[in-house]
Structure formats: C-alpha cells, structure tokens
C-alpha cells in the first residue's frame, strides 16, 4: 500500500497501549498518545480498561491522515468508545485516510463499537483496519459507514479490513462505494454499511464452538468466516434502522463483569 507524500505530511497518530500493572494487584496501565483524536481513560481494572476517543478538532478534512494504533497486551481487555461520529468533509479533490492498526496479545480482547463515519459529498476516504490477533485473542468491532449526510449523495469511500493471526489471514476485504456512482450488488441503493466483526484467533484450524458465536440478527446477514468468527452486516437507508445495534447488546459486559 502506498501513501502519497501529501498525506504522509499530515499523519497524526493516536496510540493506546494497554498492559499489566507493574505491581501485583495494581490496575492495568494505559499509555496513550494523542493525535487528531485524544485518548481519555474512562475506567481501569485488574486486566480491563475502557478508553474514549475524542476528536481534538475538525476531522476529517481533505489531506487528513488519522492513524489510531491500539495495542493490548497478553490477557488484557480493552473497550474503546467513540465520543462522537466522524464526518469526512468535502476535500475538494484531496483524499483523506483513517487507518486503524490493532495488535492483540495472547488471549487479549478488544471491543470497539465505533460511531458512524459519514462520507459527505465530495469526500474521498480510505478507511483501513489492520488487525493482528495473538493466539486466543478476540476482536469485536463495529464499523458503520454512511454515504452522505441527510439529503446528500455522499462521496467515495474504500473500506479495507485485514485480519490475520499466526496461522494466516482470517478476513481480507475491500469494499469500494461511491454515493454518486452506486453499484448494484455492492451497496446498491443503500447508503449505510453497518458491519459487526467478531473474530477469534485459534491456535489450530478449528472452527469456534457454535455456542460462542452471536445468534443470527434478524434483518442482517451473518457471514460465517472460513476460519471461524462472524461478520454481521446490514445495508440500509439510515443508521437508526440498523438491527446490528441489537447484536452489539449481546456483547456488552453485564454489570459486575468488569474486573
């Protein structure tokens, strides 16, 4: 993948690293670096933490290159919440990028129910999510992309996912959509692409126990990946109509579960 120099100049990396505390019994350690997004620690437990990502200014503008790097150490669990959705504005020809790079250690977990990325008319966005799963790690990630604000066709977006573990690739996908040139079979007439990815790294090529997978979501498509794990997907007219929200409730921790 090549990055044009104009984009590289405006790279701003936000990083979150979660690791065990140095003293036994102390809470997990959260190391954060703020970029175009700032990291706010919401809570910390023995192995879990929750952080919020807050935009520090207007994002995404043409030429912006947001990088969010997330690293969760062995046996730790991180929950990320977005404080607001993101609008990719008309860049008047300038492209922008939103790269998420996730590294999960052995048995680590990341839950990230992202808020929608709205691709305004004239915007040209590449959103790339790269995930490397340690043995037994689990990722639950919601990504919602909306073509256009209300009454608008929306710009162009490339949504890339690249999830792999030590064995090899788990999910590799690129969806290209444009509000002004809809393609039947890709998004067709719909402007919302709502995706809940639930993947689990395995030491061996064994599929997950059925009971570990979320049940099918009525009205959404559940794709069962070859290596185990699911992609639950809904295409529709407006985010508030999406049944993926219900699937997500399934994954929220019950009170008292957080340690």
């Amino acid at each position, binding site marked *: 993948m090549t990055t044009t120099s104009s984009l590289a100049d405006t790279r701003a990396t936000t990083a979150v690293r979660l690791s065990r505390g140095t003293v036994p019994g102390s809470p997990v350690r959260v190391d954060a670096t703020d970029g175009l997004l700032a990291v706010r620690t919401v809570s910390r437990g023995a192995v879990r933490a929750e952080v919020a990502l807050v935009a520090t200014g207007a994002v995404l503008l043409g030429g912006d290159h947001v990088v969010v790097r997330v690293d969760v150490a062995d046996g730790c669990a991180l929950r990320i919440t977005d404080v607001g959705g993101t609008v990719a504005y008309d860049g008047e020809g300038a492209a922008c990028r939103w790269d998420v790079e996730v590294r999960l250690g052995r048995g680590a977990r990341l839950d990230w129910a992202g808020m929608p990325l709205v691709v305004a008319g004239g915007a040209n966005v590449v959103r790339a999510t790269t995930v490397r799963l340690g043995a037994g790690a689990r990722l639950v990630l919601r990504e919602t992309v909306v073509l256009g604000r209300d009454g608008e066709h929306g710009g162009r977006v490339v949504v890339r996912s690249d*999830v792999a573990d030590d064995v090899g690739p788990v999910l590799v*996908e690129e969806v290209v959509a444009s509000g002004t040139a809809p393609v039947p079979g890709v998004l067709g007439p719909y402007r919302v692409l709502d995706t809940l990815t639930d993947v689990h790294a395995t030491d061996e090529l064994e599929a997950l126990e059925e009971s570990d997978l979320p049940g099918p979501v009525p009205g959404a498509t*559940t794709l069962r990946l070859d290596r185990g794990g699911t992609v639950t997907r809904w295409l529709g007219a407006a985010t508030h109509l999406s049944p993926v929200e219900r699937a997500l409730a399934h994954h929220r921790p019950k009170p008292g579960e957080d340690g």
Partner: protein
Amino acid sequence: MPTPPPATTRSAERTAPAPGTVALLLADARLPGGGHAHSASLEPALLGGLPVDDVPAWMAGRATTVSLVEAGTAVVTAHVLTTGGAHGLDAVARAWAARTPSGALRDAARLLGRGYLRVARTLWADHHAVAAAAGLAVRHGSVPRAVVLGAVAAACGLGPADLVRLTVYDDAQTAASALLKLEPLDPLVPARWVLDACAAAEPHVARVAACTTPDDIPSSGAPLTEGWAEAHALTQQRLFRA
C-alpha cells in the same frame, strides 16, 4: 504466449493444443464441468430484489469486484505451481477463503471446484499442477474452482492475463445464460452485457495478472451480493445451486 513446459516425455511427444484453445474449451458451456447448475449469483440477486434493468450494471460490478478475487486466486495458483515458489497452494486457498466471507459462496465455489477437478484430472492426468490441486482437495476436503483453473492454466501454459479474462468471462457468461432461464429476453441482449462486463474488467487485467503471492490477491467484495447468496442458500424455491 509462452510454450507450456512438457509434463512428461509421453505428452511432450504429442502435439499440445495451444493454450488459447484450452481457454476456449474451459469457457464452453458444453464442457461437462458442472457450471450449468450455477447462475454466478444471478438467481440469488433477482430473488433478493435486483431489478432486471440493473443486471448489466450488476454484471459489470461483479467483473470488477468478486470476479477479480477469483481471477487473482487462479493467477497466483498458476504462478505458484509454475515457479514452485515458497508459498504453497494451502496458502493460496487460505487467502481465497479469507477473501470470500460468505459461506454460501465458498460452498458454491468448492462444488464447482469438484466438477472442474474431474475435468482437469481426466484431461491433464499426468501434470504435476493438476496433481497438486488434487492433493489440496484431499488435504482440505475440497478445492475452490479458481485454484483448479489456475492449475489447468499451469498445465497448459495459459498466461496470466488470459487467465484473468477467462475467469471474468466465464462468470459473466454464467450469469447471462442463467438470466435467459429466469427472465424472457432476446438471447442476444445479455451477450452484449457479457462483453460490457468484460470491458469493465479490462482496466484491471494487468494489475490482477501481475499477482504472484497470496497477499497480492484482490479482496474486492460485494456485500449486497453476499447477503443475497446467504439468503438464497436457505430457500427451496430455486433453479440454480448458487
């Protein structure tokens, strides 16, 4: 087009058909490879609500998305089997499966792979490339159609650009001929759409033909088509397997 390496002394003594002739054979619906039971996702699309008027745009969309995943898989398979590179066929099949998130579409491709493998093992029985695809089928219990196509390309010396075009054409023609069984239409109308779909893929041919490793294989998805495929796999009211 490069001359195919002789597989064995015996076959080298025979006059080999030109690779282009083999491509014609593979693209011919009269070849009993099992393709007649498939609609290249067209029946699922129509059942899912795709208007017939949108079929040509849908075909062009396929030719530039999911067909290129298949084509890239075939190209890398042929490359691996021709050069004996570090990446084995298992890695190619795994890359394909990671790029094919719909279980219904993986099942359909593996069913087609079985039919194609029967053709390949009969026609190129002595060739190591076909034996490698057959070996993969034994290890994994199945082999996707694109891997068998790549093995045949390696066996007969079909070049990567023509292999991409063959894959795209076969997919488009499968949809077009299925359409005639599903909708009353002048049979020459979808023939135009096949050519238009192949033309839409043409700007991508060089890029896909240049793929050499499993990571290079395109991953362009079509979420709506994948959703229709999953729904279709559960219905009894269908003419085609997928």
